[in-house]
């Protein structure tokens, strides 16, 4: 078996193995590229409510009073906090109520992770660390392997010494040229 056959087998089989991760990393890449325009991990919703001004002198009394007015059950409450004298925060699962105690104005911040995309982003940005670091490194090495073996799949006019050289050159020139433009402009 000649080297090109081995090259093509390697390119094909490693390529198959990389499909899942390539799709995950690419979709997440697009999502996080535009993080200036949106939050790629969460949907954030804000709601404004008004209740009667809170009653009570101690924090505990105020919390009980406000929870009753907002119809929040005791088992829903994770925690409460007063950042200042006039504000009370109630923390529920994926929701935070910020209550302006003198006026009764309430801001409800609801947070939901984007299904699938959140998990993709966590993997792409290596949030889990640990063994995932090794898997991600291996993925990167395999991508290099697929790129290099890809250049030698075909021979002749459509191979690396034919039209292939132009595509490979374009793929190198585009990032280098852009970097030079970015750096010197």
């Amino acid at each position, binding site marked *: 078996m000649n080297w090109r056959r081995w090259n093509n087998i390697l390119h094909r089989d490693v390529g198959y193995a990389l499909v899942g991760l390539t799709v995950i990393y690419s979709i997440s890449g697009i999502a996080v590229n535009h*993080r200036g325009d949106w*939050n790629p*991990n*969460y949907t*954030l919703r804000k709601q404004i409510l008004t209740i009667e001004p809170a009653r009570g002198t101690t*924090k505990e009394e105020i919390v009980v009073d406000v929870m009753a007015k907002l119809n929040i059950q005791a088992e829903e409450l*994770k*925690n409460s*906090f*007063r*950042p*200042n*004298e006039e504000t009370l*925060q109630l*923390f*529920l699962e*994926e929701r*935070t109520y910020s209550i302006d105690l003198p006026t009764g104005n309430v801001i409800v911040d609801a*947070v939901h*992770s984007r299904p699938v995309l959140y998990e993709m982003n966590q993997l792409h*940005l*290596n*949030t889990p660390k640990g063994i995932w670091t090794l898997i991600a490194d291996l993925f990167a090495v395999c991508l290099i392997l697929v790129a290099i073996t890809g250049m030698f799949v075909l021979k002749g006019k459509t191979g690396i010494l034919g039209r292939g050289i132009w595509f490979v050159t374009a793929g190198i020139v585009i990032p280098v040229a852009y970097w030079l433009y970015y750096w010197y402009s």
Partner: protein
Amino acid sequence: MKSTMSLVVLLSLAFVLAFGAEKKYGKKITLKEKTKISDIMANPESYDGKRVLVEGPIVDVCRERGCWIKIGSDKEFGALRFKVEDGVITFPLQVKGKNTLAEGIVSVKKYSVEQLIAQGKETAKEEGREFDPSTVKGPKTVLMIKGEGAVVK
């Protein structure tokens, strides 16, 4: 088939029990003795550069990158920012409202008005709100913990 399903359910339950109760972020906690956040806030200069272990509710989280949390003080009306290196630790927004045990180095820095305005703009952008530079009245001493590790329960 039934036994396979039972095994899957049991394994899932074991996973939830093992990992669902608390989540670790960053390095292992090394200190045994906790420091009250109110003590740090009352006398920041004496803690500057010192390693501390603090405990409290997470009252806010960086929405942009999960690169900081605010930990509520043991006394009312106070919270301390626990800032971690971008990408090294990422706190999910779901930790808001949970209790944490967090270790890091106390940092006390003095900022000029210009520095505070620049910082305020950046924080407002992260939190998705408007920033009014006129709210900066003068130079300020900023206290935070440079976070290294945390356990969220």
